């Protein structure tokens, strides 16, 4: 009898829950970006160049954002310890150059050399996080900071000698910014590039690398181990009852995250064209965390579409805000807006009540 009205209220509540799931801040950001996109043709002549910028920036950052997924899945929260993965990547890239590899081979070698460091650092980091369940995010932040400042000393003290990397005068200590020209600058981006017109260019190789890793991630999450990992994150009690070794799953997810972080920074470097050392990794964490949250992830839920949407939205905002703002009100507020939006997004995610995530 009451089936019809029930159905209608069910429909209504479904719309509401959908809206609630999407969240008001996310709605505002998406609306803001759509507005920017719509205004772009009116305020800026060179739309193809802007689009190329967005695609390029997407190809640099997407893998770093992907590195958030495994740890969120296993219930370790947002990976504020991303600098650890980045440090593994930096060790790989500097060692590859130090050992004298050139061109595309130097990228392959950087990947190969970064991997053991990522596994080692990720393993240690995972063991630590297993001891402090519940306080992961705060400790991850400070583990990241400590690792960065420790490596600041190491970049000065380690016996690197390659003249492209060390200070010219003293011959020791790495420079803060190292150019990759002649090494793996654009190594992936220049594989099968698609050039349309004068300005529009698609870095196919870099995008393919992301697609490959993202597909691998997706496939992994659908294997038996991947499902077990998700179970650990969404319901630890159930997972334990099902006989899953929780600590092992968490450890695996942290190693995966760290390795993806290392790959992410290498792909970022090949697009950007420079290796940035010392305090530079500090500036990578917050934008990356914010990106996946903007894409629709929460503290204990994330998927590949979240990564893709989030990176496009965030990088779109980073690229478009300066251009549009500048031509509209002649004030470059983009940096401030970026800080408010990204931190606001993280804050929103943290203050939401999440089941299981404490």
């Amino acid at each position, binding site marked *: 009898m009451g089936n019809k009205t029930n159905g209608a209220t069910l429909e209504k509540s479904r719309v509401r829950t959908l809206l609630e799931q999407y969240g008001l801040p996310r709605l505002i950001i998406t609306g803001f970006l759509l507005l920017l996109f719509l205004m772009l043709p009116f305020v800026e002549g060179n739309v193809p160049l802007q689009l190329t910028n967005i695609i390029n920036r997407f190809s640099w950052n997407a893998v770093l954002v992907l590195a958030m997924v495994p740890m969120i899945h296993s219930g370790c929260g947002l990976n504020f310890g991303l600098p650890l993965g980045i440090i593994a990547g930096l060790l790989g890239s500097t060692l590859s150059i130090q050992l004298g590899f050139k061109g595309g081979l130097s990228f392959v070698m950087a990947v190969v050399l970064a991997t053991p460091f990522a596994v080692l650092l990720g393993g240690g980091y995972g063991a630590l996080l297993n*001891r402090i369940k519940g*306080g992961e995010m*705060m400790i991850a932040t400070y583990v990241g900071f400590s690792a960065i*400042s420790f490596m600041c000393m190491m970049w000065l*003290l380690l016996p690197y000698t390659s003249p492209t990397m060390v200070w010219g005068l003293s011959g020791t200590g790495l420079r803060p910014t190292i150019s990759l020209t002649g090494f793996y600058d654009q190594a992936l981006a220049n594989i099968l590039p698609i050039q349309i017109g004068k300005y529009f260019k698609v870095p196919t190789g870099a995008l393919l690398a992301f697609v490959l890793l993202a597909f691998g991630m997706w496939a992994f999450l659908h294997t038996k181990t991947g499902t077990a990992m998700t179970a650990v994150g969404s319901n630890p009690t159930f997972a334990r009852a099902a006989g899953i070794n929780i600590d092992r799953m968490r450890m695996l997810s942290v190693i995966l995250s760290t390795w993806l972080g290392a790959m992410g920074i290498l792909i970022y470097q090949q697009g950007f064209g420079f290796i940035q050392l010392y305090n530079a990794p500090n500036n990578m964490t917050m934008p990356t965390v914010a990106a996946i949250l903007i894409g629709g992830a929460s503290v204990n839920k994330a998927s590949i579409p979240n990564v893709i949407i989030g990176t496009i939205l965030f990088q779109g905002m980073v690229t478009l805000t300066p251009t549009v703002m500048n031509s509209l009100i002649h*004030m470059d507020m983009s940096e401030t807006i970026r800080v*408010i939006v990204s931190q606001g997004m993280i804050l929103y995610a*943290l*203050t939401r009540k999440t089941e299981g995530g404490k």
Partner: protein
Amino acid sequence: MKKNNSVPAGRRLVNLVRSNTVPIMFIVICAVFIPMSGFSPSYLLNEIVTRMGRNLFLVLCLLFPIMAGMGLNFAMTLGAMAAELAIIFTADWQIWGIPGVVLAMILSIPISILLGVMCGTLLNMAKGREMITSYIINFFTTGLYQLVVLYMMGPIIPIIHDSIKLPRGYGIRVTVSLLNMRQCLDDLWAIRIGGVKIPVLTFCLIGLLCLFIVWFRRTKLGQDMRAVGQDMDVARDAGIKVDRTRVLSIVMSTVFAGFGMVIYLQNIGNLPAYTGHSQIGMFCIAALLVGGASVEKATIGNAFLGVILFHLMFIVAPSAGAVITGDSMVGEYFRVFLSYGIITVALIMYEAKKRMVKSRAGQELAQAQKEEEDAQ
């Protein structure tokens, strides 16, 4: 249960060392570094006294949230930002000297309360992860602060004098000179003993805050705060308004941080408008932890010892590092590493202990149940 005094002396010593690992480690570091750095004792003493006057007030304001069980308040920078806004206004109105300092403190109060209420409310929405949330609130508010100071000051909020504005016509200069306010508080009743300047008035203010904290712990609100800090559910059952108490502790911390920042800035003598507050939070928290405090327990003594040890390390580390490695930058990075490292270790120890207590409680419960079953 055995009483404490029946524990053998050796055991007690081990316990003492174990519960004070961090301060002892820092004393050793300082003892090694001081001779290496080659600074004269009078120089070091002078520096330490200056830095105590500059920082102690800020460090003490961290005690309130710890009392309420909310951990280290990384959002104490909100108070610092409120103070910076207040100082910008007083500098613009050209009110200098002691009146300027007092006016800045008064002006900072409403801003601090507003930000504190915001912060406290947000933290109530994120129970169980207050620290990371307060850490993000700090960054978020920095963004809002930038929006106000960099873009709104000039067109929307009237700023009279061009001397503190950026050349482009709006926004505040990166560094605002507070030369006319410089150390006016410190110099007012300063005493010199053997070349060491002691800013008596500043220390009096710090002493007043200490007395306030001691008194506050005994008031109804202070007791409530400690009850909330021990166990929120029990406190709620006892009729304490938990959320309100928590917000109050954050507001108090923010307001006192605002006062502390005014003291800090008048000592420095210029206002780094965009970077001033960002370092404050980390250094104050590191200093408190170095003094032997933990995430759940901190005393006034911890704050004093911490400021002395942390800043001693901070002064001597660069030159000692230069002596050890031949590179002055290494020492620079080393002290940053130590301050981050100390916070990391303290956080890890806190979380590990929390888990241990929890599992022990679980074991005891299981034991009790088993005994009960056996009895039946």
